[in-house]
């Protein structure tokens, strides 16, 4: 199945011995002119790239306290060294969070610290050579920015911040990553990551309405660009047609239908994802986020709800208010933005939905906490609500629920292996190996509790698991949307 060795699932998780250079060959396709130019980046390595890179690095350390403090504060205690799923899956020591940070830190020390200027060997500082730049490209594209290392760091050093900075420097010197930059271009040009134009989207949603009516006998609406709707739903474009994502979208529609909520999607903002975050570009992230504000104003909605998407929820929850706010034109009785899980959870609490969990009795379900949701956001009013609410929604929809091992869920959750702008076929080996820790924990609940359904609330997780589950001898269709479960359990025609 693969020309590399798929990591073995062991009885108990093992921290591998380091193997230097094990993943040195893995890097994504480099971006080309048509994708670089619209974003204002050079399309090949600029002549004075060292100068440009060092200048950008200096600039970023004055713009981001996180970067400055994180580059200065690491004591190399090693607490993070066994926390990254890519290290656990590949054994490459440069995938240990501290070693990944050091790729940038050693250059920072050389050019920006006294010790590194005078005693480079002593403090592990090096010049910015082409080899170092190549290492940046290779290993900062083996970080999914999942923040698991940051949870375990005594100083909260977040490798995601470092890898975002590194990718921005790489873009500025002309070596961007094709996957992310091509996708951001599509968002600007067409409106979503998948490049689905407005008319095609309209037709897709109409087909979906027919399918749901055929199946349920109820006219559930999947509205697009409805002026004056109460709720604007912004969801990852995979929800429009990919399996199993679309079952989630079907579920959102059924929930709104039964609760009698007047909602719409937008062709202008037909994408929740914001890959501007992955490449560390504040300007691009802001530009992508502004589409949501524009759509909300155009349509005159009162609320904004975000669909099942991990990093999109991070950008929405943590950044939208800063990037595209203030949202004072929306109904102040609801949080801005709201997660679809918060909406459904609230409706369940208020008895507005009629869910029959026995409709899902063929399923034995576990839940994968998506990294960005778990470690960068919240749901509801209390810290940790992002763990509680999805599980309560699932438990209201199914009778058989089992958690994976405690050290692999909640804020200790393992990334699916495809986050942070790495969900591309040119990184397949990395994705398969990076999925190992999650697959290990999943195997355990499959063995002990006969689990046959892995629920998730992230489009990247769903796509990634669809691809990687078979490598670990698990069926690709065991991954599904949380709102797919809601969709199966909801008893249409009984409440509305």
């Amino acid at each position, binding site marked *: 199945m693969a020309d590399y060795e798929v990591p073995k699932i062991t009885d108990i998780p093992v921290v591998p*011995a380091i193997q230097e250079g094990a993943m040195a060959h893995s890097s994504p396709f480099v971006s080309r002119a048509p994708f670089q130019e619209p974003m204002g980046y050079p399309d090949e390595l600029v002549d004075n790239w060292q100068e440009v890179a060092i200048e950008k690095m200096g600039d970023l350390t004055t713009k981001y306290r*996180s970067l*400055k403090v994180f580059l*200065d504060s690491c004591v*190399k205690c090693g607490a993070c060294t066994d926390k990254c799923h890519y290290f656990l899956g590949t054994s490459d020591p440069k995938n240990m969070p501290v070693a990944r940070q050091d790729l940038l830190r050693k250059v920072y020390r050389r050019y920006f610290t006294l010790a590194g200027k005078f005693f480079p060997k002593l*403090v592990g500082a090096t010049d910015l050579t082409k080899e170092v730049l190549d290492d940046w490209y290779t290993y900062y594209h083996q970080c999914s920015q999942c923040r698991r290392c940051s949870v*375990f760091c*005594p100083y*909260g050093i977040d490798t995601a911040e470092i890898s975002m900075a590194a990718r921005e420097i790489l873009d500025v010197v002309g070596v961007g990553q094709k996957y992310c930059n091509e996708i951001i271009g599509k968002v600007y040009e067409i409106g979503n990551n998948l490049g689905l134009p407005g008319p095609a989207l309209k037709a897709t949603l109409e087909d979906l309405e027919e399918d749901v009516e055929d199946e349920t006998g109820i006219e559930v609406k999947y509205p697009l660009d409805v002026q004056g709707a109460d709720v604007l739903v912004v969801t990852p474009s995979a929800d429009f047609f990919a399996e199993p994502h679309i079952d989630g979208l079907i579920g959102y529609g059924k929930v709104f239908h039964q609760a009698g909520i007047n909602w719409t999607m937008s062709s202008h903002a037909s994408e929740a994802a914001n890959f501007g975050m992955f490449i560390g570009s504040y300007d691009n992230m802001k530009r992508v986020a502004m589409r949501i504000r524009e759509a909300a104003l155009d349509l005159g909605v009162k609320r904004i709800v975000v669909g099942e998407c991990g990093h999109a929820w991070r950008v929405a929850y943590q950044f939208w208010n800063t990037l595209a706010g203030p949202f004072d034109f929306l109904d102040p009785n609801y949080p801005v933005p709201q997660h679809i899980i918060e909406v459904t959870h609230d409706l369940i609490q208020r008895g507005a939905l009629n869910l029959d969990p026995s409709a899902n009795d063929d399923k034995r379900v576990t839940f994968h906490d998506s990294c960005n949701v778990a470690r960068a956001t919240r749901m509801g009013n209390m*810290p940790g609500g992002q763990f509680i609410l999805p599980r309560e929604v699932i438990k209201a929809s199914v009778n058989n629920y089992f958690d994976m091992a405690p050290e692999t869920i909640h804020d200790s959750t393992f990334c699916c292996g495809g986050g942070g702008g790495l969900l591309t076929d040119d990184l397949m080996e990395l994705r398969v190996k990076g999925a190992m820790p999650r697959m290990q924990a999943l195997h355990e609940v499959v063995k002990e509790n006969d689990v046959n359904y892995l629920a998730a609330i992230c489009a990247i997780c769903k796509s990634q698991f669809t691809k990687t589950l078979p490598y670990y001898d698990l069926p690709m269709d065991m991954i599904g949307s949380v709102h797919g479960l809601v969709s199966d359990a909801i008893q249409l025609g009984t409440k509305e």
Partner: protein
Amino acid sequence: MSMLTLGYSVLFYFAAAILFAGLAYRIYTYANTPSPLKIVVTPAPTTKAGVVYRMWREVVLFESLFRSSKWTWIFGWAFHFGMLLVLLRHLRYVNEPTWFWVDMIQPYGIYAGFVMLLGLFGLWARRILVDRVRYISAPSDHLMLAMIIGITVTGLMMKFVSGTDVIAVKNFMIGLLTFNIQPIPEDPILLIHLGLVALLMIVFPYSKLLHAPGVFFSPTRTQVDNPRETRHVTPWAKDAN
């Protein structure tokens, strides 16, 4: 005044100047570098009081480290809190008359010296024996441990191997603080001890020892989790396109 006394006096004034000016500069820089976005690692407190409690647990209990590595935690905690007690015990060299609690902790400070040493050797052992930690260690990481172990061992030697004239040491230290220089005892172990301490003070603001102020400026820990409720805007970010 002997050359030795003069040399050590100058060294200590220099080291203190570097330490305080360097740290002040670092703290000023950290405090004045914006955090354009909310990047707190969740679950996180939703109030300022909650953040203070979170930071207290982080700084006093090393909570995150406890979650990640029990060995590093136990060695790290033993070292830091052993050192704290040892440092408090040393107040008797600058404090006259000594406060009652400084007198009270004197005997415990001695034990703390051994606890501190145990922690340091444990950390060094991990740095050498665990392949992952060995890989990430630069020469300076080893030297830093060697320096602090040197300070601790010479300190304990003056207690248990060959005593030094502590009254004279105290006179020297108080002399430095009051700009009324007194002779330093010509005890080689004491001179090594004090020399290494001065070196530590000098490298502090230029090394990874910056983790001490750094932790208080780490946005992933110090921010309040309230991005939906309160709009977070910093100057440069406001002007970005």
